[in-house]
């Protein structure tokens, strides 16, 4: 029994990415789902499942709950609804859950979505207003250790110390993502180039990070529709087959503060990597293009290591100069610009870009892309997908 190629992504939809969307998260989600239905060639009422996610530790879709989105769309009934916890770590997991739901016959057309407006809304990630009620934050918040940037900075400093990775190497991640965004008119940073000089001389936010090491803050929503290959035949788009799925928490897992393991790396990624490659019956050598979750520059080289594209300690060197990770290189990454330069939709926009690579419609298209790896958020329990042509 395997999930391999039992489901596919048949529709992608997005709102504009902007500093101020002028409408609520529910409204943005409705617009993205509507666009995904149009893209797929489905009637809205055919949607009978929803797979969503919220921020870490809060098991809800936050400000765009599934029933509110379904109600505004006039969907008569959801035969499947589910949420995946742990913020951006959940992104690929929503698609994995949708695949399980359609492959098992629980639902026929499941929409996965994420809608957020940290740029103009009331919930601003990285801007805490008080100690959250969850007990675990008592070990951090009273010390002013209060934002994802600080939490990941703590991991980054240690990893850089252990591996000898440099800020310049992280800079190439930012530069390559920016190059990709310059070809993508949807991107927040479309038309705004970045030089290494600017990167290196930008003020520190939380060492070793500057503004250019952390993702965008924007409003927007992205939705994807998952169904079976049989149903996909009647729809408009070339399907992107879900060949592999992976979840991983590893041992002693905390939400963004897994500082207590022997090695401070990303063992949850190692677990998700093993599962995603096992279920797709592939190895890293089979991957033509990767959308590696990039809420922070540093997580790209760390994932190159944990997903097996190089050994531990070689991720920084892999990014040096940018040639191996840019379009035309051995592993082009984040071809829409990723979350450093396209938009921060908690990873959902990176799955949509993975689908475009399979379809052949990316603005930074990798020639003959067969197999695309997409990964979820880091420093949290994480998930991953391999999308393919299905051959």
């Amino acid at each position, binding site marked *: 029994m395997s999930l391999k190629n039992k489901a596919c992504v048949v529709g992608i939809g997005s709102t504009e990415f902007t500093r101020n969307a002028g409408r609520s998260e529910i409204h943005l989600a409705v617009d993205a789902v509507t666009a995904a239905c149009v893209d797929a060639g489905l009637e809205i009422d055919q949607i009978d499942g929803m797979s969503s996610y919220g921020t870490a530790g809060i098991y809800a879709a936050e400000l765009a709950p599934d029933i509110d989105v379904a109600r505004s769309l006039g969907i008569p009934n959801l035969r499947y609804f589910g949420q995946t916890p742990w913020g951006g770590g959940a992104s690929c997991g929503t698609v994995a859950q949708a695949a399980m739901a359609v492959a098992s016959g629980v639902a026929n057309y499941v929409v996965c979505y994420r809608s957020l407006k940290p740029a103009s809304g009331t919930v601003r990630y*990285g*801007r*805490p*207003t*008080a*100690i959250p*009620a969850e*007990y*675990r934050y*008592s*070990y*951090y*918040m*009273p*010390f*002013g*250790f*209060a*934002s994802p*940037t*600080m939490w990941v*900075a*703590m*991991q980054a*400093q*240690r990893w850089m*110390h252990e591996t000898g990775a440099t800020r310049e190497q992280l800079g190439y991640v930012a530069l390559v993502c920016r190059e990709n965004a310059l070809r993508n008119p949807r991107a927040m940073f479309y038309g705004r180039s970045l030089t290494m000089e600017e990167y290196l001389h930008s*003020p*520190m*936010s*939380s*060492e*070793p990070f500057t503004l250019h090491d952390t993702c965008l803050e924007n409003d927007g929503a992205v939705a994807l529709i998952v169904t079976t290959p049989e149903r996909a035949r009647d729809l408009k788009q070339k399907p992107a087959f879900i060949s592999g799925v992976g979840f991983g928490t590893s*041992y*002693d897992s*905390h939400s963004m*503060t897994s*500082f*207590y393991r*022997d090695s*401070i790396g990303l063992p949850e990624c190692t677990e998700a990597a093993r599962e995603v490659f096992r279920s797709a019956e592939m190895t890293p050598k089979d991957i033509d293009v990767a959308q590696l979750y990039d809420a922070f520059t540093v997580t790209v080289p760390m994932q190159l290591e944990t997903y097996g594209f190089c050994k531990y300690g070689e991720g920084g060197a892999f990014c040096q100069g940018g040639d191996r990770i840019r379009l035309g290189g051995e592993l082009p990454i984040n071809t829409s610009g990723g979350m450093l330069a396209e938009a921060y939709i908690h990873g959902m926009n990176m799955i949509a870009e993975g689908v475009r690579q399979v379809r052949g419609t990316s603005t930074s298209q990798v020639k003959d892309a067969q197999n695309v790896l997409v990964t979820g958020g880091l420093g949290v329990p994480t998930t991953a997908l391999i999308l393919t042509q299905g051959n």
Partner: protein
Amino acid sequence: MSIEYNPKYMKHFYDPVWENFESGFWQGIKQRKLKFQKCSACGTFSHPPRVRCAKCKGDAWEWVESSGKGRIYSWTVVRQEVHPAFRVPFEVVLVEMVNEPGVRLVSNLVDCEASEISFGMPVELCFREVTKEWALPMFRKAGG
């Protein structure tokens, strides 16, 4: 630098909450003692606290007072303000305890310039009052 607290926001950030199985840690802090959870059966330390020992699955614990000696495992210097409760810059450190194997603790480094911090640097425990009720365990350079 040392971390500076803005009294206006005291109740927003500085009142810890905890689960029942963590009381040993926070009750210790209230008495200005740094105590860690140690498995009565196999002697394994655990921080943050757990319900059962990850190694032997035992659920009997002792709360052992720490020597307070540690080494810098990692750190960050926060230079961009995320909330007026904490004036920047300040240093957050991840301290690996010397006498409690496998235990690391997040805290602040006080009375030390950011440029002085290095990996493996020896530090020692000190308590700093942050509210009328709470003094928190922080660290300073050992022998400093």
